[in-house]
């Protein structure tokens, strides 16, 4: 006999917004709501109509900032309490749709790194990716492979093995002499469809971003740009962490229902892996017949930028002295240059200093500029917005000189001096100069 007692329905509650927690992510909650009870206001925050809310929790689950919660009246809370005391939770039923997704994902195995090359020379970022790729492959228990595409680039396979790959997918033909989106994207898509990797990493360079965006669209998968952290979760999914909202905050992004999971990583973000001379691996060569006539774009000329006075490559420098808004005027950067000259460093800049026209764009450190990891990074008059910090936080040592004790730059600094940089910086320069003179005398 069935239970004859009137069944008490479990109250579902209504969704509501927690004050100040919304980050205006772009109306995810509104998009997820099946009852059309969410309207967005002018600041991009949801306004929920409690009368229309059906308590499905979809908006709560989809909110990246955990800014929504379910609200229950005291009476409803009492019912919930009584119900939970008497009933046992129902077992999760397997969802056939979820099972189909899981089966599809299972077909994809292995971690790939795209080896970016120009004129047969690999970009350093590709080898940096081998390091993080090895770690991901090890935690997944799969192979790390390199994707080498070009003309006369077989020698890069040996390098890829030395940096940790155990297999190379090689596509070598004259049509790949210069990078062009079309043939490279075609080659990647053929390799992906045939060998089904679960993760593909590319450098977030001009070439890498050009290619990754095209490939991800063609294979209809997710792509996360400029990752600064990559890890595997307990369900074999890639957790991709990157600066978001213009680099003001960090976000962890998943692509857990699609494969391959694709990420780009900027140069100098990941450390170089060790080089093992003579390491062996297997080369899988794919012969692709892409006729040159079918590729309509032609690279007519490649010119290497001449190194004029302002064109300093800050990414390779051991010592960087950067100035921000606190420098007040372009001519004041000379005091940073004097310190740089004393220790053999270069002068960098924050976005505000570049936007103000005080320093050229190639000196910019940060999310929209360059990522650096020098031995010592000295930040002068830089408050330390996350978008700047993500570009320099992996430096071996960070020294901050700023007027404001509460500036976020002091949170990443190894050493900080709170004071007037126009007095502190010249004092440091002078003392180093004296120290050098004293040592030379001995």
């Amino acid at each position: 006999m069935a239970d004859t007692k009137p069944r008490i329905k479990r109250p579902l509650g209504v969704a509501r917004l927690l004050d100040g927690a919304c980050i205006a992510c772009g109306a995810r909650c509104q998009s997820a709501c099946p009852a059309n009870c969410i309207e967005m206001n002018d600041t991009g925050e949801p306004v929920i109509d409690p009368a229309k809310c059906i308590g499905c929790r979809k908006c709560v689950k989809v909110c990246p900032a955990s800014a929504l919660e379910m609200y229950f009246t005291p009476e409803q809370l009492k019912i919930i309490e009584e119900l939970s005391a008497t009933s046992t939770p129902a077992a999760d039923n397997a969802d056939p749709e979820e099972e189909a997704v899981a089966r599809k994902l299972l077909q994809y195995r292995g971690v790939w790194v795209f080896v970016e090359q120009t004129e047969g020379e690999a970009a350093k970022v590709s080898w940096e990716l081998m390091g993080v790729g090895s770690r991901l492959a090890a935690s997944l228990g799969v192979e790390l492979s390199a994707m080498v595409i070009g003309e006369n680039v077989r020698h890069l396979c040996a390098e890829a093995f030395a940096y940790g790959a155990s297999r190379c997918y090689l596509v070598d033909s004259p049509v790949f002499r210069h990078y062009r989106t079309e043939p490279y994207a075609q080659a990647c898509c053929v390799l992906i469809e045939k060998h089904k990797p679960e993760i593909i990493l590319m450098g977030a360079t001009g070439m890498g971003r050009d290619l990754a965006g095209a490939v991800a669209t063609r294979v209809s998968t997710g792509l996360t740009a400029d990752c600064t952290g990559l890890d595997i979760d307990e369900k074999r999914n890639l957790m991709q962490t990157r600066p978001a909202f213009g680099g003001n905050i960090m976000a962890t992004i998943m692509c857990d229902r699609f494969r391959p999971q694709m990420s780009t990583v900027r140069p100098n973000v990941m450390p170089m892996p060790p080089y093992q001379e003579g390491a062996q691996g297997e080369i899988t060569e794919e012969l692709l017949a892409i006729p040159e006539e079918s590729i309509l774009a032609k690279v007519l000329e490649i010119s290497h930028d001449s190194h004029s006075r302002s064109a300093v490559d800050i990414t390779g420098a051991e010592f960087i002295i950067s100035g921000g808004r606190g420098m007040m005027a372009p001519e004041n950067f000379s005091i940073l240059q004097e310190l740089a000259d004393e220790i053999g460093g270069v002068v960098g800049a924050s976005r505000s200093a570049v936007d103000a026209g005080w320093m050229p764009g190639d000196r910019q450190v940060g999310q929209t500029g360059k990522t650096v990891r020098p031995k010592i990074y000295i930040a002068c008059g830089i408050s330390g917005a996350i978008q700047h910090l993500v570009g320099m936080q992996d430096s071996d040592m960070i020294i901050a000189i700023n007027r404001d004790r509460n500036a976020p730059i002091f949170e990443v600094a190894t050493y900080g001096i709170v004071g007037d940089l126009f007095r502190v910086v010249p004092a440091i320069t002078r003392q180093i100069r004296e120290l050098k003179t004293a040592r030379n005398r001995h």
Partner: protein
Amino acid sequence: MLIVVCIKQVPDTTQVQIDPVTNTLVREGIPFIVNPYDTHALEEALRLKDRFGCRVAAISMGPPNAEATLRKALALGADRAILLSDRVFGGADTLATSNVLAAAISRLDSELEKVGIVLCGKQTIDGDTAQVGPGIASRLSLQQLTLVDRILSIELNDGKIRVSRKLEGRHEIVESPLPAMLTVVRELNRPRYPKVPMRLAAAGGEVEIWNNQVLKLDENTIGLKGSPTWVTKIFSPERAKGEILGDGYADPDGAAKMLIEKLLAKDMLPV
């Protein structure tokens, strides 16, 4: 020939602050602006209009208040402005966004005029992905020319374009047929300011709104549902406080001395 410019309304991320107590974004009073890179894309479209007399359509996907952004494009001289706005477009990642933009471009192409060039900024300042432009190019089989810092020549009759691309430490000259999708960098041009009569005209100019009843896209390929990537967590990184040396205000020399001693002790100074 029609030139389409894709623009986005973004929060001015340079003005965002983190509340040091709650560790959350302080969004009050943050103005919305046209993505700075997109202003260069729009400028280039308008220059092509001035030179060749072709028409310019500005499109944007976003909430209804993004209309203000498109109004600016009209004020500068765009002939049409179309806002792609529908709640089913919301929560989109770059794959789902490029689907909506590409659908709008192909609608313009078939119903208005052949699209010869699609212009986008190299990236936005809020997402910073640089993925939507390539996404549009792949979906519409356009030639993809990213990071353009100069247009060297355009032959509209032959349908040919020659551009310079700005890459790391090098430049590339590429020639390709049209139609093409270009993403542009700041060095390409200097955006104009609207003239007053144009502003007045734009105040009456109409921003069309296309929702998904117009574009008729499969709801599984747009918005949140059509987005393979999703944000699971947002956080401010926690950091250890650094060591503050001396009193830089009262005694800058003393603070400098303490620093140098620390560096010498760690053998970090090249002296």
